[in-house]
């Protein structure tokens, strides 16, 4: 099994799927001749040319809206939005159009569009280029949201996303593009949407995370282990739909939960994870204390100088684990 970075795994998935299915079309800003600003689409333009790999005008709403039309014509669009913050420029096309077309046509139409976009901070990107707004899309009926943490999952989930008959927002960990490496099963290897993964096994406390935060959680788990606390890390992988089964298996065992995300705390996805856990009777009655959130402060993502302090450290997660175990 080859070792790849996240961006290499994504690129591999795109090459694989474009070769397999000639309906797949890649479109976005700078995805063609330059191979994408993070090189995720590198080599595709050379292979398939502008008929299937399209450098688009600087129009996020247009890119998403046009993808809906391409899908209706029978193509399988994989649109790249250069940074997640700019999905907001096309938010109405995602929420009111793309995600609703099956529903509003009473099941007679569908738009199997995949929107790929990097999110989160940690690479000293300019203002607005590190936004993590996954919560906006989790509250968007008709849309699936996926956020892999490993190269293996990135590749396997991207293949599933592209083949899914419904629209999928595929969130890529910006700081993991080149920093997260791992073994990757190539070929016809798919990871199903909607299934979480136990990243680290443990018994005392469950830490729920996704995307780049899984590494932070794992580091905290390792530190906790040294203190004799056995932490289970759940990598959600899919934020919509949520995998309640995997959560239940872990939470009923540990009785303590910490949810980690980089996005601002208030209204973030942690809230939905908490609501989901606590409204399940079995999980609720196994809780020994409050579910804790380790999230970004309620500010926009800061510029670079403040970034190190804003990012969630394993220490912060560890403190929450300790508090949870003490409760």
């Amino acid at each position, binding site marked *: 099994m080859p070792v790849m970075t996240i961006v290499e795994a994504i690129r591999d998935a795109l090459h694989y799927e474009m070769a397999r299915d000639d309906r797949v079309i890649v479109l976005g800003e700078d995805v063609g001749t330059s191979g994408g600003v993070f090189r995720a689409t590198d080599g595709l333009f050379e292979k398939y040319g502008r008929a299937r790999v399209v450098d688009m005008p600087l129009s996020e709403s247009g890119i998403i809206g046009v993808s809906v039309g391409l899908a209706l014509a029978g193509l399988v669009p994989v649109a790249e939005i250069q940074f997640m913050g700019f999905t907001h420029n096309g938010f109405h096309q995602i929420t009111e159009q793309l995600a609703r077309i099956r529903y509003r046509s009473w099941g007679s139409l569908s738009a199997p569009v995949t929107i790929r976009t990097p999110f989160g901070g940690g690479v000293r990107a300019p203002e607005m280029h590190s936004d993590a707004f996954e919560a906006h899309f989790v509250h968007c009926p008709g849309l699936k949201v996926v956020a892999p943490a490993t190269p293996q999952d990135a590749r396997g989930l991207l293949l599933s996303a592209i083949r899914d008959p419904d629209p999928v927002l595929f969130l890529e960990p910006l700081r993991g593009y080149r920093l997260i490496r791992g073994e990757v099963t190539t070929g016809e290897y798919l990871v199903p949407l909607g299934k979480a993964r136990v990243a680290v096994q443990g018994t005392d406390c469950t830490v729920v995370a996704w995307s780049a935060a899984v590494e932070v959680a794992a580091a905290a788990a390792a530190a906790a282990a040294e203190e004799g606390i056995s932490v289970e890390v759940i990598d959600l992988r899919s934020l919509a739909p949520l995998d*309640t089964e995997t959560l239940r298996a872990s939470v009923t065992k540990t009785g303590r939960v910490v949810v980690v995300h980089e996005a601002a705390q208030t209204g973030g996805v942690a809230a939905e994870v908490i609501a989901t856990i606590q409204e399940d009777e079995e999980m609720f009655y196994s809780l020994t204390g409050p579910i804790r959130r380790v999230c970004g402060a309620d500010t926009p993502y800061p510029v670079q100088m403040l970034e190190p302090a804003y990012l969630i450290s394993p220490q912060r997660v560890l403190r929450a684990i300790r508090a949870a175990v003490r409760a």
Partner: protein
Amino acid sequence: MDDPPGSAGGAALVAQTPPLLQVLDPEGRLQVEHPPLSDEEVVRALRGMLLSRRFDERCIALQRRGLMVTLAPGIGQEACSVGSAMALDPARDWFVPQYREAAGMLWHGLPLVQAFLWHMGSPLGFMVPAGKRFLPFQAAVAGHLPHATGLAWGLRLRGADAVVLAHFGEGATSQGDFHEALNIAGVVRAPVVFFCQNNYWAISTPLEWQTAAPTIAQKAVAYGFPGIRVDGNDLFAVYVATRDAVARARAGEGPTLIEGVTYRLGIHTTADDASRYEPLELRERWQDKDPLLRLQRYLQRRGVWTEALASRLEDEVRRELDAAWEEARRVPPPRLEDSLERVFAEMTPRLRAQREALGEEG
């Protein structure tokens, strides 16, 4: 310092108002030698416009009785809707409507029963029956325009020689989506015809407050493709302009923007009270330009229009509407549970649980 030469004034691009294409004047007089449609075709078109007119009138009446939901009639704009639809080949071309184009949609194959269901607030009104080539009516202004671009482009990429016709109002041209859709269409040379029904009003907002451009057609200059301005109450002008644009698109020459200059003869929707903002004399001025009247006058001049024809058309249309309305009322209303099955191809666990809970509460 004296006024320097090379003053920028000389280099300024002055907006050119495109001429207005008219083939039939309001009195029904042909402005050209040969009509672009045979008398039979004109009668068929008039019938389509009449069907829509009577459909709208009936639905407004039903709405007033509480039997229908808020709806946006196309009264006064039927020439834009039908004249442009006539230029399409329903066996390969697509119609992408806003919400005021029941006339064109019916012409292009929307079953009349479904049109009634739509105004009854049924989700079945938004279905696209297999084999039909249209998208559902669109409530978000301009939201469908990028879809039209993508659909046209995609069909061409898939090897079809299809053309897409998208309708919208002049208000829609102020939306970012209008801009992005047309700009992208220009770049990829999508086979799409953008038809703007400039009916002067966006609800209560007049054209002058919508844009400082004197015409909508000239907005095409921004996208590098032709903009055409036609008398939108003149079926012939609309038809000819759209036919040419469709031919251009089919030949791979890219998109066209057509502005049909028309007027909304009535309310914006059944929730609107136009008397709050509409000057009466403006309405009166346009009343006489009624596109149905114009076609009748034309047919009269040609000796085709008779009392008998008039009542035959009215009769046919009435019976068609009666039958469809009866059928629509008999369609069993869908249940909320059914809607939960149509969010995704397969229900998520939570949707399934929500669906079950609905059943229990039932």
